[in-house]
């Protein structure tokens, strides 16, 4: 995604978290026994299943709710979720793939300049907050996009939002603000 001027920024999506439901009760003990690549955690009441092809880890609860993490795009998340549902179907449960939703997308971006964080926080006072003794990054919450951007002084930023579109818009929105506060070498 490119911002308004002719700078090409590489936004790398590192994690997509999604949820879906199987609409049936799942016997975790059976899954733990008959599935391979599974870790049964009885103390937490869930089974962790790892898929290889879209590299995905899924937490499976007995109520039929499943959370998938580790995908690198929304489509990959859906593919992985469907593969997982198919796997559970084969084990023997009456699975119906429903209510698939991407819940969180995490992306990182490396800006080509360093940033003066204290100046950035001063210019964007209530939206940006920076407490150097708690966390090294300044955090900028964009309410209408429901996204958070964490800005580091080295120029790296991490963006989390509900979907890929909001993440891209967040980067577009914050780029000019960061450009103003860059650390130009004397």
């Amino acid at each position: 995604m490119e911002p308004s001027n002719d700078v090409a920024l590489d936004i790398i999506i590192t994690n997509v978290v999604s949820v879906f439901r199987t609409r049936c009760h799942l016997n975790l003990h059976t899954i733990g026994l008959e599935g391979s690549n599974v870790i049964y955690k009885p103390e937490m009441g869930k089974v962790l299943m790892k898929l290889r092809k879209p590299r995905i880890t899924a937490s499976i609860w007995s109520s039929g709710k499943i959370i998938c993490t580790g995908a690198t795009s929304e489509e990959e998340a859906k593919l992985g979720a469907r593969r997982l549902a198919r796997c559970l179907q084969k084990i023997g449960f009456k699975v119906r793939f429903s209510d698939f939703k991407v819940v969180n997308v995490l992306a990182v971006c490396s800006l080509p300049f360093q940033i003066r964080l204290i100046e950035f926080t001063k210019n964007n006072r209530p939206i940006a907050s920076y407490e150097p003794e708690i966390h090294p990054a300044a955090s900028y919450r964009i309410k209408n996009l429901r996204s958070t951007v964490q800005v580091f002084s080295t120029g790296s930023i991490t963006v989390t939002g509900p979907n890929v579109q909001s993440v891209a818009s967040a980067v577009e929105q914050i780029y000019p603000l960061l450009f103003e506060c860059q650390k130009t070498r004397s």
Partner: protein
Amino acid sequence: MPSSCPECGSSNVVEDDLYSQRQWVCVDCGSVVSEGHLTTTVSDETQGRAVPYHASTEVLKKPCRNLIAGFSRVRALCQILGGCCVLSVCRQCNWPVAMGTIGYLLGVDNATLGTVYREFTKALNIEISTIGIMDMLESFCYDFKLGPQQVEEVFAEPPQRLVDRTSALIELAADAWIVTGRQPLPLLFAAVYLAWQSLNPTVRMKYTFVKFCKIGKAPEQSWHRSRDSVVKRLKELRDVLCKLGRELPWLRGGTVEPNTVVPLVDDILKNHRALLLRAVRNYEQQLQNESQTAQTTECDNELSDSNRSESHSSTTPELMDPDQAGCENPADKQATDCQLPPDHWSKRHLFLPPCVKNRKRQRVDAPQLEVTGDEEISDSEIESYIRSQDEIEMYLKVQKELKKMA
């Protein structure tokens, strides 16, 4: 037949039956002296009866363990809340108090204090300005008791001189990526210690950081927990000073070691801009030479690599960044460089932050597939995630064996 009442001592005991049970009752106090076959008195019965657990004083005096833990936790939280109030009021009045100071006064770590402080400001909707390390510097230096009346002549240092020298050191540290992302207090300790040493190196070089804190009467809880961080910052600061110190022309390229660089600090700080320019110029020269030799000796890579690294180490090894000095293969360096965008600022800088020096290798997955989400999922693929009947039987057998052994 009883003749006197054990309760009040009167002898006025009459026989008064209750519901066809013979009872002897004292007229004066009304207590039943004896009743049918029972011959105990009230006081006998109350004292002789076993005391139930809930009525014992043991329970009242000693609260249960969870209650004690809960109370101490609430007390600690109240203390921390008080600290947060003090911190926010000081910040709002532009008095730069560090979170670490409040932390050591309460005996609490920065992380807990930080969490409570964040929730506190969110709940009360307080907007507080950020303070930088330079704001904390002056009050920090004035805290050390190094006046001429308080310590010996050789250790004494007027606070203003200490502030000036320390601020110069911290500006240098900020350029070298030592300040950002780190806790400010350990760095302040390290910088003040180096500044104090450099203001009279001949006498003060032999005093360690701990001795310096004792001389300056810094309270032990303030630096004790962060002692390791202070040592790390000292090492980083000394390395930066060495890198610049090597550029001093009157040393003529002699060795500058971290433990002997402190006497040179005065000269380094006075000319730090010029030294930085020289160092950067030399570094860029180095890069150019390397890229040229990499182009010309493409064929016999292994031999020339070892030769090159040897020749480099003989001329100017100190100018190379530590990761490059250790990395023999230029192809390796190019691999790490590729992960950054081509015009990234770190390609041109001499001092780099640790996150850029130790770049994490990115997950090399299968190349970007065009995933629509509606592809066919083959049966064989799913089979690989399900155990076959034999595997299940074997798994159950192994589990049984393990249980037997345990």
